[in-house]
């Protein structure tokens, strides 16, 4: 892109509804899709859209993310000019300033943005799974001569009350923001992806910072304020797969979506690669006794049992007579001989003992934990 666009990627979220998966890592670092972490999607979108200056704002459990992103090499973001910059909260002379909200996170890095000299600032979230050409979004923003452009997605009407709904006129000018409305007037949900003119954003961030009543959030404070002051705000209709994986169930669903070539997200697209840090592992092996159907399997796996409609990450061993169905098995896991798993997410580096079965399979999706395995062992069922 010619014009200077800087992406600010909000990656500080905890994702507490994902339980033990996010005890040690931030939500954007959660493994997804057999080899990726969620943050690979917005980062790869930046690379594929020609955006080469990216600030990544971290706060909750940032170590795994900092280590993972490093210099940004897998995403081609190790650049002389721009590139990726990790932006955790920092101390100033009058104390440490934690990021209180999405807007305060950006405000506290105003020096970084100023040094980048952007014309446009793209605000992104690090915990959404989607493929999007941000260049088209910025072009649209320029065409419409907007002060801010909000990317929106059509959601099913019956689910609209779960989202931040954007009401527009016929020309896609935003007339109202409706946060989780009981009776939605539209089914256009905000994706938490915004393009701002930098000067306008700078002004509103400073104003918001000095407002003690503000919760310092884009959706709750900045955008409504701009609307009240009749700034030009437009909605950009995004079409395509988009998923916010906030819960164990939705993380499972997002993985299962990959197994449906017609409905889900297409990863096998050389024109829009999702980049990721690649461990150097040998190819996967399906042995004489192995059987794999309707599944995705990554490198380093040895499959001697049955894998049905599942997503298998790198370095997983499925031993003979083990059956894995409708499940997500994360890296470094060993599924012991004769074990049976159905509708389960297995976190990384777990050893599932031989003949293991979930005693009382829950109605939804089970996130397997060492506690569950230990209590199964104690019950003497094996």
């Amino acid at each position, binding site marked *: 892109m010619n014009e200077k666009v800087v992406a600010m990627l909000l990656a500080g979220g905890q994702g507490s509804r994902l339980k033990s998966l996010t005890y040690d890592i931030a939500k954007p670092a959660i493994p997804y*899709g*057999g*080899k990726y972490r969620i943050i690979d999607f917005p980062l790869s979108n930046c690379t594929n859209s020609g955006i080469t200056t990216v600030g990544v704002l971290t706060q909750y459990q940032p170590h795994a993310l900092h280590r993972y992103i490093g210099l940004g090499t*897998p995403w081609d973001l190790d650049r002389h000019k721009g590139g990726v910059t990790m932006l955790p909260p920092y101390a100033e002379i009058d104390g440490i300033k934690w990021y209180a909200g999405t807007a305060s996170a950006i405000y506290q890095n105003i020096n970084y943005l100023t040094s980048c000299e952007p014309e446009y600032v793209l605000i992104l979230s690090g915990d959404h799974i989607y493929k999007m050409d941000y260049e088209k979004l910025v072009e649209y923003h320029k065409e419409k001569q907007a002060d801010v452009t909000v990317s929106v997605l059509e959601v099913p009407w019956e689910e609209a009350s779960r989202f931040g709904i954007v009401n527009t006129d016929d020309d896609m000018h935003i007339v109202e923001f409706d946060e989780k409305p009981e009776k939605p007037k539209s089914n256009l949900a905000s994706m938490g992806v915004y393009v701002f003119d930098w000067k306008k954003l700078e002004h509103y961030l400073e104003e918001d910072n000095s407002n003690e009543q503000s919760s310092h959030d884009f959706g709750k404070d900045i955008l409504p304020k701009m609307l009240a002051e009749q700034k030009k705000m437009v909605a950009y209709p995004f079409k395509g797969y988009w998923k916010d994986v906030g819960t164990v169930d939705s993380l499972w669903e997002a993985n299962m979506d990959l197994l449906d*070539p017609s409905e889900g997200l297409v*990863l*096998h697209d*050389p024109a829009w*690669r*999702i*980049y*990721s840090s*690649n461990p*150097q*592992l*040998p*190819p*996967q*092996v*399906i*042995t*004489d*006794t*192995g*059987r*794999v*159907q*309707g*599944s*995705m*399997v*990554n*490198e380093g796996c040895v499959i001697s049992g049955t894998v049905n409609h599942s*997503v*298998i*990450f790198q370095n997983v061993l499925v031993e003979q007579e083990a059956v894995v169905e409708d499940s997500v098995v994360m890296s470094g896991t060993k599924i012991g001989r004769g074990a049976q798993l159905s509708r389960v997410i297995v976190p990384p580096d777990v050893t599932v003992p031989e003949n293991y079965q979930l005693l009382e399979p829950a109605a939804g999706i089970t996130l397997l934990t060492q506690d569950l395995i230990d209590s199964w062992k104690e019950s003497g069922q094996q």
Partner: protein
Amino acid sequence: MTLMAAVDASVKVAGLQDLTIHRSVSSIPFAGRYRLIDFALSNLVNADVNSVGIFASQPFGSLIDHIGVGKSWDLDRRKEGLFFLPTTHQNGGIATVGSFRDFEENLQFFEKSRQTHVVVTSSFVAGQLDYKEMLASHLASGNDITEAIGASGSLKSYILSRRLILELIHSYREKRILSVEDLVNLKKAPYTYGVYEYKGYFAIIDSIQQYFKESLGLLDENNRRLLFLPQAPIYTKVKDEPPTRYLDGSDVSNSMMANGSTIMGNVKNSIISRAVTIGRNANLDSCIIMQKCTIEENCELAYVVADKDVYIEKGVKLTGTADRPIVLRKGERVTKEDAQ
């Protein structure tokens, strides 16, 4: 005592012509996601050898594309690292490993280095040679040159002092020797020769038959365990392929599968590289399918080696044998009429 390395990627190997029209032997794909040179390079970096010269002859485009600045092997260094040293001779590359003429052309690589010893190695042997152990054995023996020997022959890897290789580069013409391999085979005086016995897995790829046999040999779990050691990874160029998809109705057994492929058909006893598509009701037995090949539906393939970008149209039937596999050249398109 420290090691530097001269990797001979220019050796001409008769018997691999169909796979070397567009590339050197060193960049022949092997084991689904690797090129042959990956094994030599990985063995070296796993032994902390950080100054590696790759001696290449035409055609080396594929090799350069694969190696780049050596990042995958951690050889993109400020100090030392990877040196790409192509020969200027039109007909570069001889039949034996470690050509003194090629070394002479790049004399500075040897002169300006600080290491005391040099590994001279081929780039068509896949194994897990431990150069630290081999150097220790070389030093203990007191011999001038040590050759690595495995159960079925020479691994074509040699250790000698840097001082000696410089002496040989200056005197090879009058001594009438072509290469390090040549010298060791002739056992020319006044030097002393020893061997280092390597006990692990290795595969020498010097003919199509060997290539076929050793590739499918990796379906034996014991061989895989010896070649892919968690503590000594084999590094290769990163491709960012997604995991491989197995669609409903596919059936894969006893096979090694790289990433990025879409499998709808039936595969057994085979090695499938990255980004391959295998159509519905296609049956593959004992095949080696390289990167980005497409096998359309209802094909019947047995004992076939398909080089990169081969396209096999639907309904094609090809049957080779273990001794004479059918080799399809890079980019070939096979129709039902061709196959009859």
